[in-house]
């Protein structure tokens, strides 16, 4: 290596060192960011030229809907909404660290998160979605929906019911009992942390606490599922869907739109009134309608229990695996233009957005949208 190259590397190192010193001094007086006491506003809203741009990230479940809405919203207001489906957890992290202006999240803020951000973060449910229990039984046509109770599903995931022709499954499905094959049940679950797993495990707990205690409820499956050689983990909703689709005699759970779009067989699930209900527009809407009076009245309230209120909602025709998908916004943004853009976006979601849903997503009840609009969408 020639001497001059060594000199150039040395100069570059020195310059970098001083630049680093300068940057550290510049930022030193500011208090460090903390996730427990986050700043009240985010400053990432960008305004290239005259176009206002809102950046969002999070739930992959709501991504197709948000992309569809953002197109309609841009045509109406000229405001561009960018959304990246990176997963609810990553979306929350990006939102609280100020990388994006709003987060898409399937679970609401946990109670402890709510206490940290109380009064500063608005949680807006944007649509209703449902989780379907899907299976792959080549012996049965797609228009037959097998009946499952929460206790039976819990026993299947615990490895206590292992064969498709088990007497418990046959007893619940007398019309097709003779067609149930003598095959091992392959249980499929989400290997990544997922709001869908949270809803599914919460349903198992609420409907059958003796088989599935509350400490099994969470964003991931309990140990006995993740360490079982009879289970397979699929990453993401698409991974789980492909795994069930490609493995005959498997069972899993996935958002309804994935079950519909991939033509998977899906089950009728026992609800709070001991009725077996398949997920349809009617049964999903009835679940929300029957639970709406138990929900918080403001987006600034604690919604951590709201997801559980929808699961196993009362009513003969309520589908029990129903959930909201949320977006989180700051209560106050750093400048008026962006504050107005957010208000317009929320207004759009709760009015025109509810009239323009994609397959697999369902609108919120009017009572709920008007409650939310009166507290947050006032612009």
């Amino acid at each position: 290596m020639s001497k001059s190259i060594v000199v150039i590397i040395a100069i570059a190192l020195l310059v970098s060192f001083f630049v680093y010193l300068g940057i550290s001094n510049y930022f030193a007086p500011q208090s460090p960011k903390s996730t427990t006491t986050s700043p009240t506003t985010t400053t990432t809203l960008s305004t290239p030229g005259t176009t206002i741009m809102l950046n969002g990230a999070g739930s992959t479940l709501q991504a197709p809907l948000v992309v569809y809405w953002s197109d309609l919203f841009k045509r109406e207001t000229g405001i561009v909404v960018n959304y990246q489906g990176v997963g609810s957890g990553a979306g929350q992290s990006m939102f609280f660290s100020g990388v994006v202006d709003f987060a898409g999240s399937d679970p609401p803020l946990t109670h402890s998160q709510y206490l940290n951000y109380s009064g500063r973060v608005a949680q807006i449910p944007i649509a209703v979605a449902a989780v379907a229990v899907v299976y792959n039984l080549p012996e049965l046509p797609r228009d037959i929906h097998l009946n499952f109770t929460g206790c039976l599903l819990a026993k299947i995931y615990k490895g206590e019911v292992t064969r498709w022709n088990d007497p418990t499954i046959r007893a619940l499905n007398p019309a097709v009992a003779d067609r149930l094959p003598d095959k091992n049940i392959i249980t499929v679950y989400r290997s990544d942390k997922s709001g869908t797993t949270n809803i599914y495990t919460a349903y198992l707990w609420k409907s059958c606490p003796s088989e599935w205690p509350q400490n099994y409820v969470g964003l991931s499956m309990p140990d006995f599922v993740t360490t079982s050689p009879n289970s397979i983990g699929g990453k993401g909703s698409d991974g789980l869907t492909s795994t069930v689709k490609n493995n005959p005699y498997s069972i899993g759970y996935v958002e309804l739109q994935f079950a519909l779009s991939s033509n998977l067989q899906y089950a009728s699930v026992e609800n709070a009134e001991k009725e077996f209900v398949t997920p349809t527009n009617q049964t999903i809407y009835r679940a929300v309608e029957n639970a709406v009076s138990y929900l918080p009245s403001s987006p600034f309230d604690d919604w951590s229990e709201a997801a559980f209120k929808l699961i196993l909602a009362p009513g003969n025709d309520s589908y029990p695996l129903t959930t909201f998908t949320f977006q989180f916004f700051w209560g106050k943004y750093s400048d008026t233009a962006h504050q107005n853009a957010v208000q317009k976006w929320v207004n759009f979601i709760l009015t025109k957005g509810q009239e323009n849903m994609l397959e697999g997503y369902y609108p919120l009840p009017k009572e709920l949208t008007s409650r939310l609009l009166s507290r947050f969408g006032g612009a």
Partner: protein
Amino acid sequence: MVPDLVPGRNSSTLYNVLVGLNIFFVLTILLLTLYVMVSKSSTSIFAVNISLFSNKWSPENGEYGLLIPLVGSLLVSTLAIPIVLIFSIPLVIAIVEYARGSLSRILDVIVDLTAGLPTIIIAYIGLAFLSSWLKNWVEEPLNRFLNFIPLFSCKPLAGQNIGTAALILAISTVPFTTALIREAYKMIPRSLVEALYSIGLYKEEVAYMKISMIKPAIVSAILFSTSRVLTETTIVSLLAGNQFVMSSCIFTPMITIPSLIVNNYGYSTIYPLLDSVLFTSALFLYTISLALNFAGLYLNKKLEVIVGG
């Protein structure tokens, strides 16, 4: 006017600046990567209340054992590399020794193109078609007839297991390894090859001798390929089954380090040590991969000495 083609003092300075800056950037990227990984992972490495080498993984309960994914990563590589070699060495001989004219050129281009194919394509083909085919026609017969061998002792539950992942990984790596070995094979001086023929050896004997001459290059290709297989993410995430199970049977679903990272990073801020533990697992892979690449480069140098005389 004819331009001055001889580099003068100015162009020489510019050359030195560009070379110097490039070296600086490469060094900086390497050091920064190491710095970020070490500083991020140190929290979990020095945490007293967790055991990184246990076989329990449950961030909800503060358990962050990396043993099973680590074993999964090593197992999938150990299974894949012999399969890669079984296919790539005969492929090199076929392309260089037996294929003639345009067929040889077409095979060369196919190997080069497929070596750079995105793994997601192979992963999806593997998931949609090969996994169930392998289960029905390869794995179940192996279990039925050879179940006294521990590797095949369990009945495959589904197409997603460590054996399927290893085989699909091997398929995706064959062109890469073939390209590496082919280059070394072609470097053998013509005079040496002619000398081999002149003593009356047949073509297959010459091929065998040539393969013996490039042993260091084959070992270095194995090391580079192992590093690639070890760090591959998409194929194992979709095909290994993602289960925290340790078994000597290759038809068991298992998880590897890259799968673990991909499955957990989205929620790494929710659990106190998860972010740091994922960086530690990445550091393990980074260290193993760097060591393999370093050894591969060393052996390549050795080959240059042999071939260059």
